[in-house]
């Protein structure tokens, strides 16, 4: 499974590890929902660290789209909200993120 950490690059993570990452992702989501800045930062750091540890970097010349995307390491809670609501963080993005991959 290919996971991209924004501004860092893509990682190829073995499928067997995805469950662990999902759990960390849930913690992250809970922190965002609960407006818990500290919890958010801790959860994001864990998640990014695990992706970097478990995954191997995708060769730069490979043209593959990622199955999952993660925000950059120093993202703020506020920025993630913007990212998820589709306001501005992605340059030139048109509205309406409804299509299913």
């Amino acid at each position, binding site marked *: 499974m290919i996971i991209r950490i924004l501004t*860092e690059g893509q990682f190829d993570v073995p499928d067997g590890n995805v469950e662990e990452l*999902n759990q960390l992702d849930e913690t992250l989501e809970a922190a965002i929902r609960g407006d818990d800045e500290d919890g958010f930062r801790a959860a994001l750091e864990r998640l990014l660290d695990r992706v970097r540890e478990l995954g191997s970097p995708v060769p730069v010349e490979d*043209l593959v*789209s990622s199955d999952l995307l993660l925000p950059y390491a120093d993202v703020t809670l506020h920025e993630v909200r913007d990212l998820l609501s589709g306001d501005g963080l992605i*340059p030139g993005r048109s509205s*309406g993120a409804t299509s299913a991959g």
Partner: protein
Amino acid sequence: MSSIMQRISLIFRSKANTALDKAEDPRQVLDYSYVKQQELLQKVRRGVADVSTSRKRLELQIQQLDQSAQKLQGQAQQALAAGREDLAREALTRKAGIQQQIADLQIQHAQLQGEEEKLINASQRLQAKVESFRTKKETLKASYTAAEAQTKINEAFTGISEEMGDVGMAIERAEDKTAQMQARAGAVDELIASGALNDPMGGTNDLDAELAKLGAGTAVDAELAAMKAQLEGPSAPAQIEGQTTQGDQA
């Protein structure tokens, strides 16, 4: 799984899909995209240059402030030697302020350096991917009909689109950080120019003026004493020792 990771990837992918849906012949998308990739590559290279310029400006400021701090240290010693503890205290207080400024600038410098590294990486990644894309694009255009090419084009296109979205984001963030830093750097430059931070490059301020007065006073006293000695003849006792404490009203 409906989580954060998935929602962000959907947002990215929807952009690529929208572009593909609009195109009548997907092969046109390849050429158009390639032009956009070249533009983005230019932009990211400019971004690297901009961040690097800002970083160097900070380095220069840190260096200037460092010189100011050293100069103030010297002035404090000079003032203390002249028995002016008040001036020495003033010089040291300013030095502490400048050292705080230096510490702040060093933090910003580290941040900027981080952005610069990210952008350089992004630029290298994009460069490699654009090159792959170019090769793939020619193969796809030559050997498939539009319908056959569709799936393969989708793959290549969504792959590069995601990279472009990511690089675009890295550029925006670097630009934001650089803009913030330039605003602050401008403020520091103004402070240095106004002499408020005791610019060692030639600006003067009240502390400099006081110390200069102190120095001038000592010199005037010495000269007066020498003149008196001459008037009173060679046999008169010389009283030319440094009269520093009386030099204040000069």
